[in-house]
Structure formats: structure tokens, C-alpha cells
């Protein structure tokens, strides 16, 4: 299947899922109300569809796409099918940045949470890549990611421990569980700038990611400007992760699972996988958010909880398969 056709099919699926996610929700609407919403966006049913549900779906698309693309970029860069912003601790440190900003009382300052989440993602992303250059075994990198994640978790616990008020604690906790509830269009607009820059960087790094298939040294001798392409990939993945965390909190496993949904369709090519992974991530998150909304629970499920519930077993399965191929 050609790359363009694959992307078009996935776009169609995504549009379908988005339409379903906008049409379905907690507030039941009659057919007449749906018609009213379409013809009069300012009417009450129109409000439900266009100012409550649609921005939420848009945010899920952006965050899912960013995480899917970041995951695919990291898997290519680190030559590791288990790499993902969550697994490698980039999300955890980014979440720590956001938690620090909230605990420091900066939640009301525009852009403060976003900037600290981005800063956290860049620091962790840089550390992961610096270490990856010195590790020959793919398993070792995952262990290092576990350490970064644990450290990020410990520091976040410390923030909780020292938090000035229960309100701040509740606010941070809600953030860390990840959600796209109550988003408006300006949230999407604010997220889209760093995400677009990050996506452009990741796509520019694509040639280098494909060359890295042959290993570090062969890539360095290939004639491609590898140090620059590597920097693009790191900065791009970190920007995407930071923007996703800033927009929706910590949402795990989307970056891990999305590339694997499309891997076979692009013949494992780390360059061609980039766009389809972004679309797959967006699709995953729209569906997961719909599930979170429609699940018959008293408290609405948090999106990060839903993705973790499904993502952790997927991670175990992928680890099992990867471990077998590394041994042979």
C-alpha cells in the first residue's frame, strides 16, 4: 500500500471517529436537536456539540497525534520498538515540570505550565539520547528509562509532600492523570504551535531515522548530517511530548502503541512510519476519550487512566516479542 493511500484511509477513519465522538456523549440529544445544532451553532444543542465536545475531540486529536509521532520518532532514533515518551521517562519529567509550576502557584500565569512541561521534556529527552549513545544493548536503555521515570515520580511525590494546600495537590493529581475535559478552542490553538514545530523537526529527521537502521557507525559514515538530524529528532520528540503533556497531562502508552498499529503496513520503515503513527495516535486517543466519557461510572474516567489500563498490557506483549527477537 502506498504511503499516501494509507494516510488517506487513516484520515477517513479518524474523521469518522471524530464525528462519532462529537455526536455521542453524556447529554442525550434527539434528532431534531442534532439538526438544530448543525443549522444554529449558537443554540443550546449547538453549544454542546461545538463548544464542549468538538474542542475536546480536537484536543484529543492533537495530543494523540503528537504522542504517536513522538513515539515513532523515539523508536526510530533509539532503534528500539519499546521506546516511547512514557516508557523512557520523558512524560514523567515533563509532568514534574507542570506539577512544579502548579505547586509554585503559577497555574494562572498564561503559558507557565506549558513552558515548564516543555522544559521538563527537553531535559529528559536530552538525557535519554545522551545515555542511549553509550549503551549498546536495547534492554539497557529501557532500564534507564525506568530509572528516569522512577526519579520523576519520586520528585513529583516530593512536590505533593511539600505542596502548600490540598487544593494544589488535587490540581496536580488531576493534571497527572491526564485528561482533555473542559478544553476550549484556545487550548488547541496554544498547543498547535509547539506541536507543528515538533512535527516538522521529526519529519525532517526521517532520513536519518531510516539510516540508523544500520546502526550508529554506519549512519555516521553514510554521508547524512547525522548530528543535525539526531538533534532534530530529539528536539522534535521532546517538543511534541512537552506540548502534549502541557495540553492534556500525562497520557501514557499512546506513543508506544500507535507505531505498532501501522508498523506492518509501512514494512517497518522508520521514516514512512512517521505520518501514519501520528494518525494512529490521534485515532487511539479519540476512541479512548470517547470510552472514558461513555463508561458508566459515577466519576468520569480520566483519559490517562484509560490509556494506561489498555497500554500496559500492550507494552508487556511488545516487550515479550522484542525480547525474543533480541535473543535470536
Amino acid at each position: 500500500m502506498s504511503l499516501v493511500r494509507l494516510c488517506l484511509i487513516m484520515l477517513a477513519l479518524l474523521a469518522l471517529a471524530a464525528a462519532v465522538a462529537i455526536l455521542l456523549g453524556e447529554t442525550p440529544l434527539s434528532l431534531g436537536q442534532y439538526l438544530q445544532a448543525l443549522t444554529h451553532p449558537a443554540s443550546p444543542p449547538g453549544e454542546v456539540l461545538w463548544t464542549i465536545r468538538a474542542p475536546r475531540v480536537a484536543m484529543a486529536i492533537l495530543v494523540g497525534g503528537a504522542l504517536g509521532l513522538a513515539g515513532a520518532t523515539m523508536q526510530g532514533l533509539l532503534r528500539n520498538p519499546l521506546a516511547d515518551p512514557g516508557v523512557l521517562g520523558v512524560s514523567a519529567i515533563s509532568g514534574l515540570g507542570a506539577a512544579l509550576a502548579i505547586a509554585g502557584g503559577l497555574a494562572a500565569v498564561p503559558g507557565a505550565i506549558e513552558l515548564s512541561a516543555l522544559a521538563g521534556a527537553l531535559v529528559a529527552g536530552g538525557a535519554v539520547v545522551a545515555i542511549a549513545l553509550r549503551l549498546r544493548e536495547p534492554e539497557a536503555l529501557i532500564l534507564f528509562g525506568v530509572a528516569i521515570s522512577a526519579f520523576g515520580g519520586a520528585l513529583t511525590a516530593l512536590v505533593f509532600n511539600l505542596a502548600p494546600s490540598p487544593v494544589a495537590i488535587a490540581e496536580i493529581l488531576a493534571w497527572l492523570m491526564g485528561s482533555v475535559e473542559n478544553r476550549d478552542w484556545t487550548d488547541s490553538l496554544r498547543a498547535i504551535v509547539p506541536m507543528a514545530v515538533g512535527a516538522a523537526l521529526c519529519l525532517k529527521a526521517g532520513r536519518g531515522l531510516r539510516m540508523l537502521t544500520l546502526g550508529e557507525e554506519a549512519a555516521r559514515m553514510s554521508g547524512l548530517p547525522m548530528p543535525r538530524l539526531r538533534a532534530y529528532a530529539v528536539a522534535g520528540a521532546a517538543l511534541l511530548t512537552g506540548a502534549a503533556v502541557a495540553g492534556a497531562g500525562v497520557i501514557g502508552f499512546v506513543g508506544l502503541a500507535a507505531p505498532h498499529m501501522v508498523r506492518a503496513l509501512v514494512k517497518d520503515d522508520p521514516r514512512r512510519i512517521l505520518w501514519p503513527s501520528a494518525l494512529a495516535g490521534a485515532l487511539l486517543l479519540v476512541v479512548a476519550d470517547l470510552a472514558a466519557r461513555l463508561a458508566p461510572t459515577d466519576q468520569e474516567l480520566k483519559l490517562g487512566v484509560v490509556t494506561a489500563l489498555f497500554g500496559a498490557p500492550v507494552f508487556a506483549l511488545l516487550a515479550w516479542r522484542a525480547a525474543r527477537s533480541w535473543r535470536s
Partner: protein
Amino acid sequence: MTAAWTLNGVSARLNGKRALDAADLVAWPGEVVGVVGPNGAGKTSLLRAGLGLLPLTSGEARLSGQRLDQLTAAQRAGLVGYLPQDRRVAWNLPAEVVAGLGAIDLPEVQALILARDRLASVGAGDLATRGVLDMSGGERARVLLARLLCARAPLLVADEPIAGLDPDAQLLTLDLLRAEAARGAAVVVTLHDLSLAARCCDRVIVLDQGRVAAEGVPGVALASDVLARVFKLDGALVESPAGPVLAARRL
């Protein structure tokens, strides 16, 4: 004539230890140079230092007469193709895509055509669309060799290209490298098999503890005193109908 590769008094450190000590190497167009030596003698370090993958503490390296540190990545890739010892491939790409990675100067379609041609010449033409991780180690080695041949560079450097291959694939690999030399390329290979080094190389460089211990045509560089001093072997190269063979026992 300009040498394809010149290393002049090259020294380098690896993990805090001296890996190379004023080593020299020259490779001329049309010849196959073998680099041999015991484990840890610095064979891989010599190649890496000469390619700019290992920083030099002294000495200089030139590719086709031009100083290595003044070349861009793209210029360097035009002057040398490198096959590293690590043959792990990260993703299950089709063989033709992997081989085509050797020709990034060409548009993708032309690179694929060249890749299929080179795959056929290494006897892997029927594997072109197979995933490289679905292959045996020997098949994968052929694909990576095809990738090296796609580089069309005046210097080909291969680190242990025959390690882990069956005897037929070993001889095929060396024959293909010899054919590249016959076409005018300079070829430098590290080898552990001294019989094959003697049979397939025009010149042999013997490394010991980061220094060049002997150098010359195989009969000279692998003379009995070198075998004893460097390899701790008591023996000699003896002629056989198929070429020289190492007959030796441990000292």
C-alpha cells in the same frame, strides 16, 4: 597516483587506554589490504580512527589525499564506504531498501535499481523483497555487503566482513571485494583467518598492541617469526593447491 587512504603515525585512546600507537597504513587503488592481529590489537580502532569515528590524539588521516577533518559528511561518504563489524539491523526492512541505503546520493527509485543489481551480484537477488530480520545471519551479511557495494566509493573498508559466515560465503565475500579492487577501488579488510588473509590480500598489516608489527606481502608480513612474536604460534604458511594455508600450533 594518490593513495585512497593514508594514515600517518596515528595514535588514539579508547576507554582511557591507548588503542593505537603511531600506526601507519596506506591503501592504493586496485589493492586489497588485510589488517590482522590478535584480539585487542587495535584492528577496529585503526579503521575507526582512519574514518573519523575515533578521535586522534596525534597523526593524521587522509582520504584520496584530502585531510579527513576538512571533509564534510557527504564528501567523506563519497570517498569511502564502511561496513562495520556490528551487523545488527534494527528494523525488518526489505533487503533492497537496506542495500539502497548505501546510495543516498541517488534518488530513491534509482537507489533501489542499483540495490537490486548489487544484491544480484552478491548472490542474493532472490532475497530483494525479503525482510532482513527474516533471514539467516549469512543472508543478512550478503545484504549488508551489497549495501557497501552500492556506495561506489574509491575506498571500501570492511571490519571482519567474513566473521560468522560459512566457508562458501567467506570465499564469496572476499572474491567480491577482490573484484571491486580489480575495478580500481582500494579495499581494506580486517580478518582473523590468516590463511584467507594470505590468500586474498595483496598486502597484510599486522597489528600488535596498537602498533604495526609487520607489513608487506603476505609471505613477508606473516613469516614464521611474526607468527611467533605477535600471534604466539609456532608454524608457517604452506602452499596448497587452493593457495597458502596456515599450519601452526600454540607455542
